[in-house]
């Protein structure tokens, strides 16, 4: 069977090859003129397009276009509004009843029911389905049975006992513990509903995903492009204002920028840093630069004695104060990053937990005090340090070198700090997750949902899923637990902030800057905006003369 199948693939490949060679020219006409279709930049998604298996921006973009979740985040305020759900109610912050809006349909015409959600979530959680976002379901009762924590252990159930379908439009969720803001997480795409075809014809689904969102996929050529048109069955509030979107995969964003200027591309949301200084003039103002839910940090390896010894908290704090964030964000990033004052993001807003003064002077450039603190704490361990980064993406070298120069200038030693590149992201992440880092390294966090909890729990709780610095403070953990159970959102936020305050005392990471979302667009389109996740709001884009 396998032989026959692969022979087919080879034959298929040969046909594709011939076809590609035969129709060499002129096939790029899609979306060139007055067809009302937006041609947008895209990066190749790194995983198959399944909601619970997509954890990076490029796949997330598409899921955002083709799915409508129970809740969706408002592109402007980030507030979680009910969309597919008619109501989500609870009396005890632990048991939730979810009612769907009537007559929702997937783009293939099949109805969206309570089991579309329950089946999708069970699929996402089951360990044998190897979904990268499985842990998003960990708060649901019965997760342990479908996803045992131990490596290699077989699941004892296929569905989570906490999920129950009541009728076609109603289901209930039981959580393992009280969690008042849990419903606000449901806008994350891992919680999307799935149509029957996902389970009956999985391979076919991956070739052409089907959802209940504003757009529907008409063609998907992996690694090259995807064409989407408005979903005729969509009844939600974000009806597309264009006739479709053509996502084009580029090998390099500099190339995409050139293509944007040449008029072969309409929307580019990844403008390379070196083009920023002239992007405004090149594009005649068709350019936006606004805060997004991304923060960049430098993590200390607190599992290493050298960086965790008594007095080192002073050194870590001193290093933070030795970094001239203002100059670096201006000169290296052309002000597309904003110096960080806390460990969350301005997109949360003051009511959501963002605070510009919570850090005190810990993030203020102060050479004299920095030098003093580092000396008081016993100096940099071993006399010199490195900042690790991966060299394969995101031009990290420039800012790492700038940060090191800033530290070196403060200390008056031109070799105190140097950048330490690692060839690939994979290698870099391996060293981090195995706890092999002996020196500080770059780290970054892009929010999953606009809640302060997402900026704290995964990163700094003792058992946090992304606690790369191996920080552990029982006081912090207790405050987080208390905040999760607090039904009043404002009070919960205050508790989260109390926990955050501890981080500026212990300094497991140095906050650097908030990353902005940017986009440039061609004169062919208008109304380009971005949401808090820095995705373009494709549904709002209009094509001129289209």
């Amino acid at each position, binding site marked *: 069977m396998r032989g026959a199948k692969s022979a087919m693939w080879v034959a298929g490949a040969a046909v594709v090859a011939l076809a590609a060679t035969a129709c060499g020219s002129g096939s790029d006409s899609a979306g060139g003129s007055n067809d009302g279709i937006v041609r947008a930049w895209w990066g190749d998604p790194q995983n198959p397009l399944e909601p619970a298996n997509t954890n990076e921006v490029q796949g997330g973009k598409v899921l955002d276009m083709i799915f409508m979740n129970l809740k969706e985040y408002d592109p402007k305020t980030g507030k979680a509004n009910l969309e597919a759900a008619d109501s989500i109610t609870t009396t005890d912050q632990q048991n939730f009843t979810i009612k769907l809006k009537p007559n929702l349909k997937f783009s293939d015409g099949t109805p969206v029911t309570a089991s579309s959600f329950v089946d999708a979530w069970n699929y996402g959680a089951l360990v044998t389905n190897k979904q990268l976002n499985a842990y998003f379901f960990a708060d649901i009762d019965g997760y342990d049975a479908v996803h045992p924590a131990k490596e290699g252990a077989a699941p004892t159930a296929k569905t989570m006992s906490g999920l129950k379908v009541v009728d076609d439009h109603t289901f209930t969720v039981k959580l393992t513990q009280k969690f008042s803001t849990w419903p606000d997480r449901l806008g994350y795409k891992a919680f999307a509903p799935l149509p029957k075809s996902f389970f009956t014809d999985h391979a076919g689904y991956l070739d052409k995903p089907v959802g209940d969102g504003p757009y529907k996929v008409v063609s998907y050529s992996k690694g090259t492009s995807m064409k989407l048109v408005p979903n005729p069955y969509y009844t939600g509030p974000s009806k597309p204002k264009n006739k479709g979107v053509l996502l084009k995969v580029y090998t390099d964003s500099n190339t995409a920028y050139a293509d944007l200027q040449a008029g072969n591309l309409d929307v580019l949301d990844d403008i390379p840093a070196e083009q920023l200084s002239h992007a405004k003039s090149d594009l005649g103002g068709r350019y936006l630069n606004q805060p997004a839910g991304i923060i960049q940090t430098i993590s200390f390896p607190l599992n290493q004695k050298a960086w965790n010894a008594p007095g080192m908290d002073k050194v870590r704090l001193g290093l933070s104060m030795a970094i001239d964030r203002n100059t670096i964000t201006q000169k290296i990033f052309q002000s597309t990053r904003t110096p960080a004052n806390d460990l969350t993001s301005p997109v949360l807003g003051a009511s959501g937990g963002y605070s510009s003064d919570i850090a005190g002077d810990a993030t203020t450039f102060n050479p004299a005090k920095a030098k003093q603190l580092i000396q008081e704490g016993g100096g940099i361990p071993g006399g010199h340090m490195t900042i690790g980064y991966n060299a394969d993406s995101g031009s990290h070298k420039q800012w790492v070198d700038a940060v090191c120069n800033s530290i*070196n200038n403060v200390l008056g030693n031109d070799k105190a700090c140097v950048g330490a590149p690692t*060839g690939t992201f994979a290698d870099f992440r391996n060293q981090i997750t195995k706890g092999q880092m002996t020196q500080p390294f770059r780290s970054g966090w892009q929010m999953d949902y606009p809640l302060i909890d997402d900026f704290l729990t995964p990163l700094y709780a003792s058992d946090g899923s992304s606690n790369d610095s191996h920080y552990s403070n029982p006081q912090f953990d207790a405050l987080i637990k208390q905040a999760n159970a607090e039904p009043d959102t404002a009070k919960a936020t205050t508790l989260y902030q109390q926990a955050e305050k501890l981080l500026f005392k212990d300094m497991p990471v140095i906050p650097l800057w908030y990353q902005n979302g940017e986009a440039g667009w061609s004169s062919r389109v208008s109304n380009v905006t971005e949401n808090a996740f820095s995705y373009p709001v494709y549904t709002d884009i209009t094509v001129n003369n289209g």
Partner: protein
Amino acid sequence: MPDLTDATTATGTAVPDAATAATVPAGQREKTRSLAGDAWRDLSRKPMFYISGLLILFLIVIAIWPSVIASGNPLACDLAKSQMGPTGGHPFGFDTQGCDVYTRTVYGARDSVAVGILTTLGATLLGSLLGGLAGFFGGFWDSLISMVSNIFFGIPILLGGVVFLSVVKGGSVGTVTLFMVLLGWPQIARIARGAVITAKQQDYVQAARALGAGNTRMLLRHILPNALAPIIVVATIALGTYISLEATLSFLGVGLKPPAVSWGIDISQASNQIRNAPHMLLWPAGALSVTVLAFIMLGDAVRDALDPKLR
């Protein structure tokens, strides 16, 4: 297998001599005019030889004592001066980090020239040794060496670089050179093999063999001088590509690591700033070009001098 008449009984003893003779032809004294003597007489009449020689001498001097012509510190950088143009005392302007481009260009000579020259020497010695061996003896050696060089050719530079330099925890001149030699020798070996095969076919070589010349003598006196020309041509150009390859490796994060200063690092940093600060690219790339030019000119002159047919 190329039909190479009767070379199958040979042993490999002559070969190391052959390789060293490629660079030190002064090893053979003859009563009559020696090859080296001839070459020297020829060279001493060429202005190109003197120009390139002086340039290379100058490069070597500043590679060893950069402070002779640059008083600054290549690692002292002030971000406030990022990408500023030339000002008093800073004739070449500043790079993105606000470091002085002039100082960095002067200091960059050491590692760049070292990597370029060492790699060229290593790859040329290893390549012509193995390629010459393959071409001269044919048969089993030829197959074996071809096989090994083909395997090395098959490894993508990027993969090799990432693996090699992360496994040996590289980043120094030594490890980068070693990696580039491993990567570069098959190219020289192919050329050397072809050149030796061609040289072997020549009538005077056949005649020498008929007169009973041994393998060592054949290689040193007849084949080597004739096979040297294409090797030197490729090696001198390769020197330039090795220095740029170092730039590419730096660009990919597997080349020389900071605080090393090299043209490669600076060129890769400047390459995408062409529109913002062309001076960042101009000077290190200019220094690289002049260096490569000097070596190519020297290579040409030496090659012409070594080639008896051109006299």
